[in-house]
């Protein structure tokens, strides 16, 4: 899984421009599923046919980025953010446009670092003037962090672990999954980082019985951390809530029971801010019981996000167990009580 994660992490794919990462993932899954297709928002669907419960498992494949808004006469590019990008983190970074063009992030003279905002920064692609720059990029092009993934023991450091780690877990689960009576729709969603957009339309299209998102989550195990229970290396996290969803208690219970049965280490995750695809899925049509398996991740939305391969392995085990479990919808999620 570490090679797969490295490959996914290093592939270009900011929100709205997921063509490259979609192609890579399609290549990884197509031999293990019955159907593969895309939709107008660019979501990638992988279907494993079955006769019983229809389960949607979503992992967003987009990453945060920066979008060119202006090219000045000297060839410097001004930009805006695509998703949650911090100016402090951007400072001194190398970025790539996906067409091979690489740039440095430069900063205007500042008298106080606290005054650093995105509009004080620019991308320098080494062009001598506007004409030269315009041959390389155009307004509206999106750049991401340019960063190779590094493996340090069981830990992997790199960009876009949010959420290529989730994509890798879903891909690996699809590979390991035996025949089940469930019908599995794995969706590698787009535009999560700008508002859960791909999951909203894909969930409508599929109309699943159950929804499950696989995404990274924040941790509280670093020096002077926020008060969070989740730690790197302590297992897959079962989400209780975040700002977008309160996970269905039955799904939480199912995941906890499966973890106990298969002796998979898990931790409960309560996140006060942030959202994930389950936020859109659970509100689709008449409502879809939904949950989330989270992969603990340090330094989220930086080029040095860190995940633990053991946590990912445990997430694959938990996801595979969940997707293989028969769910009698009428009994588990009764709508009519009399």
């Amino acid at each position, binding site marked *: 899984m570490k090679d797969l994660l490295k490959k996914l992490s290093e592939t270009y794919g900011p*929100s*709205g*421009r997921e*063509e490259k990462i979609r192609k890579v993932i*399609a290549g990884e899954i*197509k031999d293990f*599923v*019955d*159907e*593969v*297709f*895309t*939709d*107008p*928002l*660019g*979501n990638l669907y992988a279907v494993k046919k079955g006769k019983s419960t229809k389960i949607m498992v979503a992992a967003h494949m987009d990453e945060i980025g920066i*979008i060119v*808004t*202006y090219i*000045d006469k000297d060839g410097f590019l*001004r930009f*805006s*953010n*695509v998703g949650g990008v911090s100016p402090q983190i951007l400072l001194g970074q190398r970025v790539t446009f996906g067409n091979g063009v690489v740039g440095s992030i430069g900063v205007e003279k500042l008298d106080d670092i606290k005054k650093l905002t995105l*509009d004080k920064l620019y991308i320098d692609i080494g062009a001598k003037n506007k004409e030269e720059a315009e041959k390389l990029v*155009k*307004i*509206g092009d999106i750049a991401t962090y340019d960063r190779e993934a590094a493996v340090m023991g069981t830990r992997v450091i790199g960009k876009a672990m949010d959420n290529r780690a989730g994509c890798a877990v879903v891909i690996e689960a699809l590979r390991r999954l035996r025949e089940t009576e469930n019908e599995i729709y794995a969706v590698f969603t787009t*535009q999560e980082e*700008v*508002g859960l*957009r*791909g999951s*909203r*339309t*894909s969930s*409508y*299209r599929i109309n699943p019985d159950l929804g499950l998102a696989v995404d990274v989550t924040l941790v509280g195990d670093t020096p002077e951390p926020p008060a969070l229970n989740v730690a790197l290396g302590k297992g897959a996290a079962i989400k209780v809530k975040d700002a977008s969803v309160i996970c269905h208690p039955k799904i939480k219970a199912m995941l906890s029971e499966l973890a106990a049965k298969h002796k998979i280490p898990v931790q409960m995750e309560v996140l006060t801010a942030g959202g994930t695809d389950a936020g859109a899925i659970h509100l689709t049509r008449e409502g879809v019981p939904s949950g989330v398996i989270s992969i603990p991740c340090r330094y989220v939305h930086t080029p040095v996000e860190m995940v633990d391969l053991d946590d990912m392995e445990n997430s694959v085990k938990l996801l595979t167990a969940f997707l293989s479990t028969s769910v009698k919808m009428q009994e588990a999620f009764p709508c009519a009580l009399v």
Partner: protein
Amino acid sequence: MLLIKKLTEAYGVSGDESGVRNLLREELTPYAEKIETDSLGNLYIKKGIGKKPRVMVAAHMDEIGLMVVGIESNGLLQVKTVGGVDERVLVSKPVVVGENHVPGVIGAKAIHLQKPHERKKPLEVEQLYIDIGVKNKEEAEKMVKIGDYAAFLATTHEIGDNCLIGKAMDNRVGCAILAELVKEDYDLELTAVFTVQEEIGLRGASVAAYNVHPDFALVLEGTTASDVAGVEDTGYVTKLGGGPAISIMDSSFIAPQKVINFLVETAKKLNLPFQLRRLTTAGTDAGAISQAHGGIPSAVISVPCRYLHSPTSIISLDDYENTLRLAKGVLMAIAEGGLSLEGFAEKIK
């Protein structure tokens, strides 16, 4: 010119769009195969029913404004904002209140009575009121009631070098272009939707897109032209006179690269000036439409507009004409198969 003048001078604050809707309905009845409204008040004009592809073109009818929330004993009206109102532009502006269009003005404490520190701060809506020239609450209640909408009162006229000044350019300029589009025939099924409640959250468009479920959607808008004093050109969103603005990204929507390329190529083929909208915030109906059903490929073309959301917005009539030409060119090109709609969803295995 006449239609856009009539449209901008009509009143239609979000949720109260009937004035604009009636005008459009009357104007477009001779050209429509079918006209419908829905429970939110969207107006649908259909042409070429049964043809393929099915294209929806949307422009929102509503404008920002105020709502009466209280009447003081002295007859002054307390108000709240509806939509993105810049409170700094409100004071001393003439308005009309309620369905009878009772004239009034947005009042505030006169400069003579303000303390020095008060003069330094912009007035908030809580410090403002509408004065309809009555002596007391009883008299006011004969003319207006709580819940009445108030809209800017402004006439539209030409100024300067082929420019137009007036209120509600956002988005009667889009409505005017869409109305002109409806007057011609295309080899496709066209549903023109004049949407409601865009300014308070893309509400009309989200049900309209669900209702129409088109193969492709084009949104016509008025967008910020920030080529004004105090803004560096790095921060210009669009330039007045620079041609139609093609959207790449806003807070509600990211245009597919394929759609951007198609619009740019269409503009180039027609020899039209155009610009890319250089702002990634603010939302449009495309945000809601692209998220309807299983996702709908969408595009936004806007007319640059200075002083957006004020009663004195300025557009260039050249931009208006070129946006109309581009929108028409886009429909023609789609009818001729210039945008492969199948390509938006691919079967891989």
